[in-house]
Every structure is written in structure tokens, then in C-alpha cells.
């Protein structure tokens, strides 16, 4: 299934181009207004992680739902329902979303760091956050995309439905990215946290990933078939 | 609300609102019960 997705994708290159263009566009806007000369340096490690994840979120919302909507629109969905088991289909779509998002992050993150002239105190944490956060983004988006593909008003509905689902992921990822840029850990209940706090937050992020993926595996068959 | 013994008024207003809500809910319960009963019987032709 995964191979099939990529074959059709390579033929059109639509999603890749959309995602990349969108992300770079947003990055340009953000950096022009908030880049090294724009924002006060002290604040940058606070605000910039948010922007990074917003860019990723919007790019994902622009590019990922397409894979399902396209099926429904071109009527290939019926053929798929006959040909593949739901689990295989879901895994295929998920793998596709994952690689797409990984490529996106590989493009955006270095550019972001370079353009914003950021130092990364804990690069390992940053990579782990991008990986775990990206995974959750892909998994959540894939399931929601499957749901909205059979409804009307697809674009806005996807945003409406996915936002509350992805919000915990985003908040965790932003906190972790902040820690990765600045060092130390998330504040926690009492105040400034230490390195251990970041570990806890990362585990919660991974827990989220696991939960959403499991939910996707269990719910996708129901969504896909009457 | 600057009325002498102010906080008691809040309590009274609360009680009034709650009682009103409660009576409304009872009325709703009765109406729904009536509708359910009328739907059990083949009384749908009675709809004006």
C-alpha cells in the first residue's frame, strides 16, 4: 500500500510540492518579520518554537488530507475497499504521511534554525521532539483525514476536527522545543524545571503517539467500511 | 451588588433560578412522556 501511495505521488508530485512551497512561504514571512534583526533576542527561544510547529501544522493540514479526499473524488475508494484490508490501508496511508512529514521537517527545521540564527542547546532533544511530534501529527491527521473524506466541506472541516485532537501534541512539542533551544526543561508545577522534566514530557509525547496510532488502527476499519 | 447583606441575595437568586430550571425540566419530562406514549399507540394519524 505504501509503495502504491508513493508511486501515484511521484507521478504528480503534487503533495510534495504543495507542502514544500507552503512551508517555505510561511517560513519566509515569519523570518522576515521576526528574524534575527526583527525580534528581541531574549524572547526568541520563547516565541520561535511556536512558529516552527505552526508552520508544520499548517503544512500538514494543507498536504495530508489530500490522500483520502483524492481517493473519494476519483472513485478509486471503492476499488480500494475491495482490494485491501483496512489495516493494511491505514498503515500504508500512515507510512505515507510519516515520510511526507519527515521530509517536510528535514526541509523546514534546518532552514528555520539557519534563518532565525538560533543556537540549539540540546540538539538530541530537538531531533527527538521533531520525530515524536511529527509522528503524532501524521497519525492524528491520517485518521481525521479518513473521517472527513466522506463528509462535505473538507478543507475547513479537517482543520476544525484536527485542531482539538492535535492540540495536546502541539503544546507538548512546543514546550520540548523550547527546552531544546534554551536548555533546561519545561517549567512543571513549581517553576523552572530540570533536564528530567523534559524526559517526562517526551515520554508523554510518545504516549500520545501510541494512543493516537492505536486509536487509528482500531477506528479506521469502522470509518472506512459501513 | 451593593445591597446590605449582599451575599444572601446571591443565594436567593440562585435558589430562584434553580427552582425555575427544575420546574421547566419536570414539564419537559412530562411532555416527552406524553409524546412517547402517543407514539407507542398507532396514533400518528392524529397529527393535525
Amino acid at each position, binding site marked *: 500500500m505504501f509503495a502504491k501511495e508513493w508511486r501515484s505521488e511521484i507521478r504528480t508530485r503534487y503533495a510534495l510540492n504543495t507542502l514544500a512551497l507552503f512551508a517555505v512561504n510561511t517560513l519566509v514571512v515569519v523570518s522576515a518579520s521576526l528574524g534575527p534583526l526583527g525580534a528581541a533576542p531574549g524572547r526568541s527561544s520563547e516565541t520561535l518554537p511556536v512558529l516552527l510547529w505552526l508552520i508544520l501544522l499548517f503544512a500538514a493540514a494543507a498536504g495530508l488530507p489530500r490522500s483520502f479526499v483524492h481517493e473519494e473524488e476519483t472513485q478509486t475508494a471503492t476499488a480500494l475497499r475491495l482490494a485491501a484490508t483496512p489495516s493494511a490501508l491505514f498503515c500504508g496511508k500512515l507510512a505515507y504521511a510519516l515520510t511526507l512529514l519527515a521530509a517536510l521537517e528535514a526541509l523546514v527545521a534546518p532552514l528555520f534554525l539557519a534563518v532565525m540564527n538560533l543556537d540549539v542547546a540540546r540538539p538530541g532533544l530537538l531531533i527527538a521532539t521533531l520525530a515524536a511530534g511529527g509522528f503524532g501529527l501524521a497519525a492524528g491527521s491520517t*485518521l*481525521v483525514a479518513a*473521517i*472527513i473524506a*466522506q*463528509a*462535505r*466541506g473538507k478543507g475547513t*472541516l479537517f482543520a*476544525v*476536527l484536527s*485542531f*482539538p*485532537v492535535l*492540540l*495536546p501534541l502541539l*503544546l*507538548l512539542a512546543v*514546550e520540548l522545543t523550547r527546552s531544546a533551544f534554551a536548555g533546561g526543561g*519545561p*517549567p*512543571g*508545577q513549581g*517553576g523552572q524545571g530540570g533536564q528530567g*522534566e523534559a524526559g*517526562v514530557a517526551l515520554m*508523554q509525547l510518545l*504516549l*500520545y503517539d501510541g*494512543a*493516537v496510532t*492505536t*486509536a487509528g488502527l482500531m*477506528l479506521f476499519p*469502522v*470509518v472506512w467500511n*459501513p | 451588588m451593593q445591597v446590605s447583606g449582599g*451575599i*444572601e441575595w*446571591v*443565594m436567593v437568586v*440562585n*435558589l430562584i433560578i*434553580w427552582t425555575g430550571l*427544575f420546574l421547566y*425540566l*419536570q414539564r*419537559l*419530562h412530562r*411532555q*416527552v*412522556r*406524553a*409524546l*412517547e406514549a402517543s*407514539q407507542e399507540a398507532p396514533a*400518528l394519524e*392524529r*397529527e*393535525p
Partner: protein
Amino acid sequence: MKKRTAVAASWLLWLWLAAVIVGAFEYAPLAAKFIGQSSRILFFHVPMAWAAFTAFITAGVYSVRYLFGGRSQGSPRDPRHDRAARAAIELGLLFGLLATVTGAVWSRIMWGAYWNWDPRQTSIVMALIFNGAYLALRDAVEDAEKRARLAAAYAALGLVVTPFFFFVVPRITFSLHPEPVINARGRVEMDPRMLQVLLASGAGFMALFFWLHDLRTRVLAVADRVLEAAAAGAPSASSARATGTSAPHLGEPRTGADPATASQRTSN
């Protein structure tokens, strides 16, 4: 529930919550670090939040039952579960809104600002948006079976994500919220009379939620049957009025006005 028991139970609920209201203002002492009388709002704000949380869980559970509830292959799913889930979501929206408003009012008194993106505030907003999204999804699907199925899947997803809303996110960042009822050391440190009123209020609001849920589910069922009968039976003036626009909103009554107009027709 037999009619007499139901009536008696509801009067008991009235008495219970009336006692809670009086207790909140007369019996319970004021909390130490709160400004003036403002701590009294907690006896309502906290149970409303609990009710909203319960509503969320209820919707998720009914949705799972709807999707996977023991049925043999090929038999249709039980629409009652779908209605119950939808009713719970609507009530979650209601109680969540109430909790948010009471919380904002109290926040204004204590810290001068209605809103400060305190993690608990953020998580209740997340839940509210989720409930709204569920209803938006229902409106976006025309086919009744598909609508129920997709909405249930979304609510089930919400059930999975809920613990992150309510427990994980508020923990990772600094919070203005007072410590939860059971604090970090695992013991309750609230004045006993306050605790009594709070728990009594919690119980009362829970009962209120379940009563409202029962009523709303039954209203949805009645409306569904009216619309089904109208669709199946001979066209008439009243059925045209009842259905209004066709397919998209079949089985999706818009407001509480439906039972009122329907009951006026039957009681004539």
C-alpha cells in the same frame, strides 16, 4: 424508571441542590487565600467542570458501544447509543461553557484578568472546541448511518485524547490554578465543611447531568420517530412542517423548540 420513583427522585434532586446552594453560602467557611466571598463560586465551578468531563467520557463510551457494541455480523447498529452520545456531547458543551464562564469570572476577581491561558483553562477550551467539532461533523454528513458512524469514531478518538487534555497538559506548565482537591502529597487538605459542600455539589451536578442526558436522549428519540413516520407515511401539512428541509437534517432536530411544538400538537 416507574413514574412515581422518577418524580420522587427529581424532587429529591431539587432538595439536594437547594441544600447545596444554601450550604455554599451559609454553612461552608470561606477559603483562606481567596478575595472576599469569591471562593463560594468554587462550589459551582468545580462540579460543572466535573460534569463536563463526565459528559465527555459518557459520549466516548456510548460512541464505542455504538461502533463495537456486541452485535452479530450484519445486524445494524443501535441508534440509541448514537443519540446518547450526541446528547452527552451537547451537555458537555453546556457544562463546559458554564465552567469556563464561572472560572473566568473568578479569575477576574482573583487576578484581574478574565483569561490568562492557564493550562486548565486551555484544556477546557480544547474540550469545548472538540465538542463543537463533533457537532460540526454531524452537520457535514448527509447520510444518517454514515453520520452516526463517523461522529462516533471521532468521539472515540476524543476519548483516547481526553486524558491528555485534562491531566498531562496542565501538569507540564506552571499553573495559576489552585491545587486540585487531592494535592500532590495525596491527601485532602481542604476545610471539612468546604469539602462536604463541594462533594455534595459534585454529586448533585452529576445527578443533574444524568437527568438532563436522559431527557435529551428521549427528546432525540421522539424527534427521530416523528421524522421517520413523516418520511414513511403519507405527505401531509404537519409532516412537511416537521421535516422542513429534507435529507441533510433528517434526524438532526435543531433546537429544543421541537418537543414544544410537537407536544402542543398532541395535547390539542
